[in-house]
């Protein structure tokens, strides 16, 4: 027999709280870095005025023409304001990872093994995607 489950459930609320916090953090980082970028406080790797020459190129040609780092290479160039924007982007890309770690702890605590296994599989997949090991070619 099914137990009655009305939303929001406790797990919905835990996930919502963590999601909200880290999304706001990513959003704040993104706004700050974009302001730094567009106001010219820190110089970018590619000057904004020159960017229209490159933004119509396919990604492989763009990377070759501008020397834009791929994978996690941008971390070594955070002194360039255009690449600084990737901090906020990466936080937004990582929000789900953080939330799933929190939910994994929750499901382990309440002994929901199936959902703990789903969390682990999803985390492995996201970490693989974020690792930079998956490099498509053209």
């Amino acid at each position, binding site marked *: 027999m099914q137990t009655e489950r009305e939303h929001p459930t406790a797990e919905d609320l835990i996930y919502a709280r963590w999601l909200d916090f880290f999304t706001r953090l990513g959003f704040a980082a993104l706004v700050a*870095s974009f302001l730094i970028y567009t106001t010219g406080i820190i110089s970018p790797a590619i000057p904004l005025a020159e960017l229209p020459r490159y933004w119509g190129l396919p990604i492989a040609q763009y990377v070759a023409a501008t020397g834009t780092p791929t994978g996690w290479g941008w971390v070594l160039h955070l002194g360039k304001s255009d690449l600084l924007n990737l901090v906020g982007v990466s936080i937004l890309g990582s929000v789900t990872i953080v939330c799933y770690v929190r939910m994994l702890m929750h499901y382990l605590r309440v002994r929901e093994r199936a959902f703990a296994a789903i969390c682990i599989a999803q985390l492995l997949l996201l970490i693989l995607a974020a690792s930079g090991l998956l490099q498509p070619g053209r």
Partner: protein
Amino acid sequence: MRAADLLLLVVLAFPGAAWAADVPTMPWWIWPIALFAVTFVLGIVAILSGIGGGVLFVPFVGGFFPFHVDFVRGAALLLALSGALAASPALLRNGLASLRVTMPLALAGSVGSISGAMIGLALPAAVVNTTLGAVVLLIATYMMRAELSERPRGGLADAWSAALGLHGVFHDAAAGDKFDWNVHRTPAGLAAFGGIGLMGGMFGLGAGWANVPALNLLMGVPLKLAVGTSGLAISIINSAAAWVYIDRGAVLPVLAVPSILGIMVGARIGGRMLRTAHASTVRRLVLASLFVAGGRALAKGLGIWN
């Protein structure tokens, strides 16, 4: 804001962008401002309709703005992700999304979306635009014919659904209604989300256009819960595909950041409007936008209108 006002904003915003695309001498700062205005509207529409911002963003921005489709798809995945991230806390707190239903489906969708992103970045732009245009037009035609159900007839829970506890009581505040629901056909739903994720990753589409019918018609989730759950699923599935684009260097801040900011602000407003919005008006608005955007992408891919 009424849906009619949204329609007016869309109509005003897109011809402006099309005109601007023909003027290569425009200063760079015109583009972030135009992108913010367009994506603010998309953010509201995307959440109200549950289709995700990417399905509108890719054909419109790819068609009417000067950026290469590789960057447009990278930005689209990020903005669909951001819009979903921004709206999901409110959806969860208001009982309009189910984490329990989302998690297994998002896992299948993530496998598909990572594969799709790898394939999409390996294809030439003309092939991507042509296929994208055809897919968007098919989506619009399908959405015109599909009749979603506010309150699906309760089917029998399958073994997977029963084991995972995919059921509940839905309280529709707008209709003052409360009823039991349970998920059925879970394996078919998982397969559907895998396929939808593949297309989403390949074209940078948010994939809500397909998530909602899969949840509602195939799996028996009430419509409003399906819309919210689709948004939450997009926030997870698109994280996976977005990383493939980030790693490849396909994130152009001047394109992606104003788009993300616009969609996040729009999505917050859309999330609040969802409880009282008239689904039929939003649906007509989205269909019209899809036909315009899909036609433009197809024409660009075939070299008819560059």
